């Protein structure tokens, strides 16, 4: 028995206010259609985890007032520049920013993936990233003398939200080489996944596709969302819509411009059936 298919709006309904939600980076597979549905349903107080960095979806959620806190190694729109809503909220203090470094996010998720309370990570010592993390610990490496090392506690997100190239009838999803999505699916209590295309044949029984497949054991529900990553890209299927992202970066520089963007591209979007 696999995971059920629901509408994108119903998928968004499964994400509660206050949830810790893990999002992939913009160059991975982002469930933008579901993020827009989240904004439309007026979700509040999300804790966003950028794995390992955050981008366009986080910025839209922050601008929409849906985010209480964000833990990430960076928030950026890549070539389109700084993330304007994040930058505004961070300097206004309206969003709590928990600064990390990329491998610390991976490490925290891998700890949850393995069911251990922490994993160690090299580096970090002497940085202000570490100095401001009361939840991280420095211990002496028990296998060597005088060798301090940082321990990162596990992060178990409530929800991993991402897009997949294919979903099959049992709820297995194919994400190809974007294996950070497997990590967040494993670490999270549940994965909610939009899929570009529904396939009839089992992804997991196919030796060619299985290696890029995340088992339905991790998936709570799916929604069919063609072009569901737009304006971000999907592997080799479609590229990011650079013009749209540049327009967003320009409009979102002011709160008013952000509101116009939202009205035009998010709130007005019809809910997919």
């Amino acid at each position: 028995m696999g995971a059920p298919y629901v509408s994108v709006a119903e998928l968004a309904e499964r994400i509660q206010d206050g949830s810790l939600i893990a999002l992939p980076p913009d160059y991975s597979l982002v469930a933008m259609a579901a993020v827009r549905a989240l904004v439309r349903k007026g979700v509040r107080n999300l804790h966003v985890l950028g794995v390992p960095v955050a981008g366009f979806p986080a910025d839209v959620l922050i601008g929409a007032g849906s985010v209480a806190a964000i833990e990430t190694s960076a928030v950026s729109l890549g070539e389109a520049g700084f993330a304007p809503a994040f930058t505004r909220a961070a300097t206004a203090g309206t969003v709590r920013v928990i600064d990390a470094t990329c491998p610390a996010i991976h490490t925290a998720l891998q700890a949850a993936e393995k069911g251990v309370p922490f994993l160690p990570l090299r580096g970090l010592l002497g940085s202000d990233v570490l100095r401001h993390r009361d939840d991280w610990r420095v211990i002496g490496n028990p296998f060597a003398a005088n060798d301090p090392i940082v321990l990162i506690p596990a992060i178990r997100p409530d929800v991993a939200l991402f897009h997949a190239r294919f979903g099959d009838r049992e709820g297995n999803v194919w994400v190809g080489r974007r294996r950070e999505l497997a990590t967040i699916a494993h670490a999270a209590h549940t994965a909610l996944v939009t899929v570009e295309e529904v396939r009839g044949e089992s992804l997991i029984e196919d030796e060619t596709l299985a290696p890029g497949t995340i088992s339905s054991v991790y998936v709570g529900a799916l929604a069919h969302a063609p072009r569901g990553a737009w304006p971000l890209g999907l592997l080799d299927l479609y590229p990011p819509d650079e013009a749209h992202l540049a327009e967003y970066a320009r409009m979102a520089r002011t709160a008013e411009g952000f509101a116009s963007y939202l009205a035009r591209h998010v709130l007005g979007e019809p809910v997919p059936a």
Partner: protein
Amino acid sequence: MELAPPEVQIAAIARLIAGAGHVAVGAASPIPAAAALLERVRSGGRTRVSILHRRRGNPFTEGSRELFDLAGQGRIDVFFLGGAQIDGEANINLVGIGGYPVPKVRFPGSFGSAFMYFSVPRVILYREEHSTRVLVERVDFVSAPGVSAENVHRPGGPVALVTGRCVFVFERVRRRFRLASLHPGHTVDEVIANTGFAFDRPERVPETETLSGEALDLLRGPVAAELAETYPEFARRAFGAGVG
């Protein structure tokens, strides 16, 4: 032939990575990426280049953590970092200016710097803007420190800083930068005036060696074209019509 400023910087970086086995390029680094791709071509492929954000044919198959795992395994020889601020001890700040956690000015964040700076033997700092705003006495936030105490496991660290005006090399034992070369048209006095930290320099500072002939053709031809796959906007600006 006159080189545009980005081409000079690419030339300077390419020289710093000569002979490296594996060069990795992280987020938003078109100029280091160009230098790495150029070095790959010039080495006849002996230098491997991994560009994290390459969308098609991304070299990583283990997801975005593979770059960091590779560095932890000691399989990356060269990596690039920038800094909203960089200070005289090679500390870098990618987070913010004026207060934390609510700064006056906020930058994207530390990315992988707090790990990669410790793990990769040759980290090259690159920042085009060379001003007292960027090159400061002391950073407001240490995303990653330039040097560490002796008991800190640190196979990696900074070796050089390339800006729009010059090349500094970093001397870990002295914990100081030394001016290594000036880009064509720039002067020592100008560098001193635009640098917020003290640095060493030889009596006579050489000019940064640039590119000519075949190397320049490679840069403007196949390297620019490959760069455009990942950094289309930059490639249009820097190499214009040459990019198909």
